[in-house]
């Protein structure tokens, strides 16, 4: 595992070279998920057999949808279309059994040609079928084979359709501003019982019993940890083109499109912060249609089979109680990056306070954007530039939500002293200059994770023991995003593995973290 990850991160340094390995027109898209667009409202997909790699070294026999005559892939190509487009899909069949595609959530989907089947028309072996739908509503949708779906989705015939909204297609998931995003990532969740695949590969399909299903592999976008961390189109994973390694800048709104593409439920837990669930099954969670007023804040989303969810994740490091960047009070501020600032909301004292005062008042309007109920650290000083040589660090809490009167929970913190301040003196809500509140043990008492930068501070380095850690681009914070059914963090009886990925949050200043994304690849099908 360690050596493999080591190789992965060596590879990350040269990953952009992969871009040139595919003979189709590729747009490196900074904010987009990996997928396939169409220039003429048509897609040609081919159902064909192939193998995927799993981290324990096995190869698994699969059936998958390929783009045109390309590689069979798992999961199927992510079809990225625009709202109101009428899309025609031709499905060629190179398998020895009939296959098809159904489009849950596309109310206008019709099968134009093919052999009659139970759920839809099918492409016979060597033949083809054709489907058409109008993408009337934006959102995240699933598609899969409607022919023996209990076997064929397990075999890999499943994928995602993303419908971009008519307005702001590259920055919103829906027309609503509450779905705006800076980056987007796909989390298509599946599990697998290799015994089924063995039987199919040996031509013993009649012996497959999907009711005795016993999954031992779990996937995000068709890969298991640590392969989820590799870039898209990685050469040793020719049939698993999609990555699952979010890169996030402090303050970004990150859209996560979750797709339940297997047969089990998975509680997808995102470390780092809550995520806001804004849509389910391609519909904004809204009573008004204009804003996601029914959105929920969650730390885990139960992704059920056939369901899709859209969530927004943001990480700011607000109110940690210590300086995220490891600054001293006199250091320059991290500012000018919006939500990536050191969360400064500056205002002035409304009335002076004595050295013994236990409450203070501040002037609105800044008061409104300070924490409603939580306690927080603030700095008071007099005169111009921040943070004046005479200053006092305090910890404050509103007397009641909405009030601009604050209880001073503690005064003269961090080697400053409680003193008298005048009406109009400056005060700011910030962790800037807040020291690390605890002493970390010496290295010899610690085990360092391979994604640990060696420092508690974002964008900082510290010496690490030889051979440990250090796979940490620009010393970002890594967070594991994974199934919280912990059994699913394994691959064929080996821990760690399975349905897990690592997201990294990076420093907002491009001078510190140039933010060269793991490239995301949009192929435009000819």
């Amino acid at each position, binding site marked *: 595992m360690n050596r493999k990850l080591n190789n992965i991160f060596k590879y990350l340094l040269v990953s952009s070279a992969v871009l040139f390995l595919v003979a189709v027109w590729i747009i490196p898209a900074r904010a987009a998920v990996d997928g396939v667009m169409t220039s003429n409202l048509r897609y040609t997909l081919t159902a064909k057999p192939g193998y995927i790699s799993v981290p324990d070294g096995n190869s698994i026999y699969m059936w998958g949808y390929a783009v045109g005559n390309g590689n069979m892939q798992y999961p199927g190509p992510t079809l990225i279309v625009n709202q109101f487009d009428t899309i025609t899909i031709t499905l060629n069949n190179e398998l020895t059994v009939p296959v098809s595609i159904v489009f849950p959530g596309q109310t206008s989907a019709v099968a134009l040609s093919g052999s009659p089947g139970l759920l839809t028309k099918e492409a016979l072996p060597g033949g083809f079928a054709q489907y058409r739908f109008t993408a009337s509503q934006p959102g995240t949708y699933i598609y899969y084979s409607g022919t023996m779906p209990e076997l064929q989705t397990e075999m890999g015939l499943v994928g995602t359709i993303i419908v971009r909204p008519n307005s702001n297609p590259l920055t919103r998931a829906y027309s609503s501003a*509450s779905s705006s995003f800076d980056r987007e990532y796909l989390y298509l969740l599946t599990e697998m019982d290799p015994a089924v695949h063995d039987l199919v590969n040996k031509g013993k399909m009649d012996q497959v019993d999907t009711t005795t299903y*016993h999954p031992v592999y779990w996937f995000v976008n068709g890969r298991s940890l640590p392969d989820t961390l590799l870039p898209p189109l990685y050469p040793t994973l020719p049939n698993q083109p999609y990555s699952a390694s979010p890169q996030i800048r402090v303050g970004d709104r990150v859209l996560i499109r979750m797709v339940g593409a297997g047969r089990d439920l998975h*509680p997808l*837990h995102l*470390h*780092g*912060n*809550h995520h*806001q669930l804004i849509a389910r099954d391609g519909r904004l969670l809204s*009573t008004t249609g204009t804003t*996601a*007023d*029914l959105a*929920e804040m*969650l*730390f*885990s989303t*139960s992704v059920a089979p056939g369901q899709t969810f859209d969530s927004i994740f943001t990480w*700011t*490091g607000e*109110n940690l*109680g*210590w300086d995220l960047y490891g600054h001293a009070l006199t250091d320059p501020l991290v500012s000018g990056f919006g939500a990536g600032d050191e969360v400064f909301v500056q205002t002035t004292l409304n009335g002076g306070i004595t050295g013994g005062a236990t409450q203070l008042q501040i002037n609105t309007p800044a008061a409104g954007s300070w924490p409603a*109920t*939580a*306690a*927080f650290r603030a700095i008071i000083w007099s005169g111009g530039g921040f943070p004046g040589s005479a200053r006092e660090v305090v910890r404050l*809490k509103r007397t009641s939500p909405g009030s601009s009167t604050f209880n001073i*929970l*503690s005064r003269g913190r961090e080697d400053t002293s409680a003193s008298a301040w005048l009406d109009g003196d400056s005060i700011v809500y910030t962790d800037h200059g807040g020291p690390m*509140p*605890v*002493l*970390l*043990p*010496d290295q*010899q*008492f*610690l*085990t*360092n*994770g*391979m*994604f*640990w*930068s060696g420092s*508690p501070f974002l964008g900082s380095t510290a010496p690490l023991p030889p051979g440990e850690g250090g796979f940490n681009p620009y010393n970002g*914070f*890594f*967070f*594991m995003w994974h199934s*919280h*059914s*912990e*059994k699913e*963090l394994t691959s064929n*009886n080996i*821990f*760690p593995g399975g349905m897990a990925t*690592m997201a990294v949050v990076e420093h907002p200043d491009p001078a510190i973290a140039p933010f060269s994304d793991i490239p995301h690849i949009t192929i435009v099908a000819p």
Partner: protein
Amino acid sequence: MNTIQNNMKKNMKDNRGTIRKERLRGLVLWGGVIMAVWMLMVSASDVLADGGVNFQCPATITDTTLGRTDDPYIACKHLTGGDGYVRMADQPPPPDGNAAATYIFGFCDATAIPVENVMDDCLLGAQFAAPTLQINEGDEFYLTLTNVGMNVRPDLFDPHTVHFHGFPNAAAVFDGEPMSSISINMGASLTYYYNIVEPGTYLYHCHVEATEHMQMGMLGNLYVHPAQDGTPLGTCAQGNPCTKFAYNDGDGLTGYDVEFPIQISAFDPLFHLADETVQPLPFADMLDVYPMINGRGYPDTVNAGVLTPPAENGNKNSQSVSSLISATVGQKILVRLSSVATIDFFTVQILGIPMRVVGRDARLLRGPTGQDLSYAANSVTLGGGETADVILDTTGLTAGTYFLYTANLNHLSNFTEDFGGMMTEIILNN
């Protein structure tokens, strides 16, 4: 229960004697090693002020259970990570049953223990459920984790962590996920710091070798009382306003008279036996057959006290969290539901008492524009790592015994015993 499980159980018992002898031999061998490592740590701590057992708390502790200090806004707790034993509900103490207990990894509450005694007192002192952590919004929470080592598995030099599951805007250093962070080695302490800004029902667990350490029991309740506590709002018992709340709701919707943490989980005894006896761990075949609430199966869940400790851990109390819910008719009960099950989803029901789900994943169920998302229900379904806050309004109910249990009825069992499992009682008095 089916014959496969009966055979499993029989084999386990057969294996046990042999395994124990093997283990004893191992202990003699490894005892020396573990002692040597500790002595190294102790001697090193003379040189390095930050090594050895080190409980960092900037205030003086006044209540070791709640971790309160003489500073009203600072809370401090000291946990240790290690191993130990618990009794499943079908493993009663002698003379009624055999003495066999279930091997676990877990946390031990060392807050009240002088630091020089922590390594000894918490050795084999793992508790399941882990010690409950309850703190207040506005607290600065200092949580020290000391790794006392695995007495039964001295071959495992596993580090441990605390993952404060759901902590908002977490920093990697205090997240406890070992790949992206630091973990504490045997014989030393790491202090986590949390500025507590969001009230609600969370949970905590060790994240090292997550599938193993969590299946083995490093799981506990963790919740945060809101700043609104103490403000009279809404209606509670006898028509009085509530003064305790699940969240800062502004209207008393989440107000309650009494609160109970209900954490659901489940064990696979074969996995525990494999860990106890240094066998390959059956990850792929992991099968949970001991469904529990707060570390016990029914009827142990309704034992209001501490369960009789197992002999295997030197008679240390290891199952201290009762799940017996008791209230007076007319009171509002807050059930802080969480799941730390490592395999299955569970649905929890309460027979005869209406539920209102007011919180989910440590947030008030209220939309970004103030839309009320709370809902009346008769069931709550949780996957591992999910929590819900449920208010039970007992106004107008008849006094008596009510049941909270899983609607996954096959989990109303304690392994081969077709009775018990994930169930507890709610006693309503007049």
